[in-house]
């Protein structure tokens, strides 16, 4: 069945298309170039509408134990946003930590067709995938956390052969069904279990004697040599610490030119100027990102209101727990594997610190030049729920709107930020890069995030409304795999998205070290630790897409 979208303005940065009027043809879930005489089964007249590939969120906490802890913990947040079932859609709750099905619906209603869980613990991978399986419509994938797990730290401290470390990284990606690897407070989650309360980039882990810098370089190089497309996804040391920007600059320098992705960089861009010893260091961070082409980042923009922070960074979350709002929080040490911290949080526009966090995020957006290396995130739900994206897009595209919003926040905060002096306004082309083409390229999703011939027909059609918040809140049409899913912001069909994984090769001999390790120390056997493909496919409820990896070097 051939479908035609006629007369839309196409924003397809991956193919260099910037607002040209073109027709798009869809057949069997793909974008095609049909025979001129082919019969059109259905035509959508979208003259003057803005057409982009489906949105891709490269960093959103949508599945896994810490999200379900957050869900259990916050009934009072859900109660403001409960949703009844319909003949088509399931019941659920929204806002800060939405239920799984509703997460999928709300992404789709916002024109998104994929979201990636960035902090899947290997020990919790099965649950993370079960939650993602229950996340309707959108495609998903997950980054598996390494760097505070004892097997890796033992390898590193024991100066194991680098190829064995790479084998372990690759094995873990297979076992956890991951598409990328994340490191969170490198070594710090483990160090916290040994009662270390901070771990600077060059500080030694009290038991293993290795530094976060060693961990970052080893993992970053390992992934590069394994041919994994997405670079090491780094949640750095000293999250949220005033002065933490210096660690971020050192991390960039310490990467030795290896590809790295610095996530929620806003939380790592704080200086120590002023009476409250808290100021923006967005300018030097942006300068370093601009100068180092090996670095990509996402922002982790803060939005005002109630949310919940949920992180693998147990060390930092224990400190943050002092500011929990409401006053309840969870920190966990997990399975000689990782940790987590769940701390509800309310960002207030009248708070100096929160207002400055908001300003710092926007400064980073406006000061970092290359949207191909900068992705639009709130680190859902840590900076705010993903449903803020349309508002955030308007803040970036509309200087007058941004000025209005600046009038509402704590006025002192602006004294320690350059935000008011920045005139940049993002174009639709740049927004399409940050929310589609860039994440797809960075994650190695070969047929997603663009509208070229052969691409998966994940397509969003927007009304070209000068109120960009309204425009991005309610897309007119959303196609997933060529099927019409959303019309005028409302779901008209529900499908199950796929799970994207990457499978770098590894030498089977790593299993010989892992099997006894699990038997001696763990409470789960290696064979049961691994997630089989069938568990994700689950009788056809889910599906797997194996994205390509490059050739392994050594």
């Amino acid at each position: 069945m051939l479908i035609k979208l006629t007369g839309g303005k196409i924003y397809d940065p991956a193919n260099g298309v910037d607002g040209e009027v073109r027709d798009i043809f869809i057949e069997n879930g793909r974008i095609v170039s049909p025979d001129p005489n082919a019969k059109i089964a259905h035509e959508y007249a979208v003259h003057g509408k803005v057409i982009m590939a489906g949105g891709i969120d490269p960093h959103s906490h949508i599945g896994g134990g810490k999200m379900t802890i957050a869900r259990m913990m916050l009934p009072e947040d859900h109660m403001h946003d409960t949703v009844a079932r319909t003949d088509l859609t399931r019941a659920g709750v929204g806002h800060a930590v939405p239920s799984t099905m509703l997460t999928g619906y709300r992404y789709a209603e916002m024109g998104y067709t994929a979201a990636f869980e960035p902090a899947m613990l290997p020990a919790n991978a099965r649950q993370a995938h079960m939650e993602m399986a229950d996340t309707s419509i959108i495609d998903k994938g997950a980054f598996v956390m390494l760097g505070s797990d004892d097997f890796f730290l033992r390898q590193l401290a024991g100066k194991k052969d680098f190829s064995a470390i790479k084998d372990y990284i690759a094995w873990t990606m297979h076992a956890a069904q991951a598409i990328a690897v994340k490191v969170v407070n490198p070594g710090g989650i483990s160090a916290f279990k040994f009662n270390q309360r901070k771990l600077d980039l060059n500080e030694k882990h009290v038991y293993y004697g290795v530094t976060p810098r060693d961990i970052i370089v080893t993992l970053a190089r390992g992934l590069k040599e394994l041919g994994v497309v997405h670079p090491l996804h780094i949640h750095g040391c000293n999250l949220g610490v005033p002065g933490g920007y210096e660690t971020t600059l050192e991390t960039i320098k310490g990467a030795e030119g290896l590809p790295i992705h610095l996530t929620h960089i806003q939380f790592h861009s704080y200086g120590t100027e002023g009476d409250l010893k808290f100021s923006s260091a967005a300018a030097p961070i942006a300068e370093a990102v601009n100068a180092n082409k090996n670095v990509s980042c996402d922002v982790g923009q803060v939005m005002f209101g109630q949310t919940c922070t949920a992180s693998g960074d147990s060390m930092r979350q224990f400190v943050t727990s002092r500011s929990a709002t409401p006053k309840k929080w969870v920190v966990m040490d997990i399975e000689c594997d990782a940790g987590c911290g769940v701390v509800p949080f309310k960002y207030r526009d009248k708070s100096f610190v929160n207002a400055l966090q908001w300003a710092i995020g926007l400064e980073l957006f406006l000061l970092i030049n290359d949207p191909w290396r900068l992705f639009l995130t709130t680190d859902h739900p840590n900076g705010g729920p993903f449903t803020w994206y349309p508002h955030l897009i308007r803040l970036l595209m509309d200087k007058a709107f941004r000025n209005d919003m600046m009038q509402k926040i704590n006025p002192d905060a602006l004294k320690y930020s350059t935000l008011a002096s920045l005139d940049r306004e993002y174009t639709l082309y740049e927004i399409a890069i940050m929310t589609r083409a860039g994440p797809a390229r960075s994650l190695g999703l070969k047929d997603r995030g663009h509208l070229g011939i052969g691409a998966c027909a994940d397509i969003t059609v927007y009304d070209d409304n000068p109120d960009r918040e309204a425009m991005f809140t309610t897309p007119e049409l959303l196609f997933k795999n060529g099927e019409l899913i959303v019309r005028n912001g409302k779901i008209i069909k529900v499908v199950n998205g796929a799970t994207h994984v990457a499978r770098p090769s590894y030498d089977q001999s790593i299993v010989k070290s892992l099997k006894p390790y699990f038997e001696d120390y763990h409470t789960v056997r290696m064979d049961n630790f691994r997630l089989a493909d069938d568990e994700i496919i689950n009788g056809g409820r889910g599906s797997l897409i194996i994205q390509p990896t490059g050739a392994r070097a050594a």
Partner: protein
Amino acid sequence: MKSELSRNGTNHYENVACPFCGILCDDLDIGPSGDGLKVLKNGCSKSVAGFERPLSEPKPQVDGKDVSLDEAINAAARLIKESRLPIFGGLGTDVDGVRAAIALAEKGGGVVDHALSEAQYRNFRVLQNSGWVLTTLTEARNRADLFIVAGSEIHKLHPRFFERVVCNEASMFSDNPAKRTVVFLGEGLDQSAVSGKRIGEVVTIPAKADRIAEILDAMRAMNKGGKISGDTIAGLPRGVIEDLLARCKAASYGVIIWAPPSLSFANADLTVQAISEFVKEINLTSRFAGLSLGGNDGATSAGAVCSWQSGYPLRISFASGKPDYDPERYSATKLLAAKEADLLLWLSSFSNEIAPPETDATLIFLGAPGIKSPRTPKVYIPIGTPGVDHAGTMVRVDNVVSLPLRRLRESKLPSAANVLEKIEAAL
């Protein structure tokens, strides 16, 4: 999961996960024996009782009379449709079973609750009120040098817990790990499983279960530098409690264990909260963590799946179409006692104890054969046990690890998920 070996022409399974208690040991060997299964390695009383329950494949029944599965499903659907307020309870099943139960409850406009949620709520209330610092089984197994068992009969709930997490000889962090101190804080707790090379001192502090909170509160106060008057704390000499606090502060990684099902006295959530607040406090200077056990009969899976799908940990009603959460009002036990609910669909596939409660409400019973109903259900549909009759997944009690369950024998018994999906389709 390629550990299926053929021995003597029949299947022999290694590294089998056991669904019969919350800690989901996954190192069992199971083989055939006569018509049934036999636990060959790493068994315990619960796994033997569960895996070796003889296979029987009774017919579904309506009003005690054998019917086809389709007839039973249609009868169940009709009853749910006619019901004013149905309860979908028991929920002794795996992740897919809970998923299907929630979907059916949504469509049928009913209440979702687990048989053991009264115990779970001793924890959930604390999570929703103040939170905690917790650890997990592998972390405790390798790291802890002090265990405190707070008023809970762990050995009965989890016959292999001490063997696997406390008495293990190997530790990741030392070839010659220090001996562990195990403190039993409570009266008459079974200590028989605490022995072996790793165990140093075993200390007994015979506190009354409902006064454990006082001890934890006192220790928290003392740790903050507060003064406690009087010679006794919770009926025990204050020196004993001071000594316990000193042990906690000296531990490199202390773990305090409780099992909510054991804390069966009024307001026991306040005991869990006192434990949790003490653990938070001591973490300001040294490392310490809580470890909550229990979670038998699929309770943990039910709480987790219900939370991720609806936002709330059980005790929700879909009567309005929306998930309406009220942990007091939507307790299945209370609704049945108050006769607010007129139908109970009870789901149980693990231990024989999780039988349908006595109730006047119309009863639809989805149960593994061997689990007896106190009266003849209106509709009875025999179901398989996850991990025995069909594959599945369950969430372990620490809410972190989940494990794959395998199909170990040929059985015609359908899974709960399968039956529930059919009932939903027939609604």
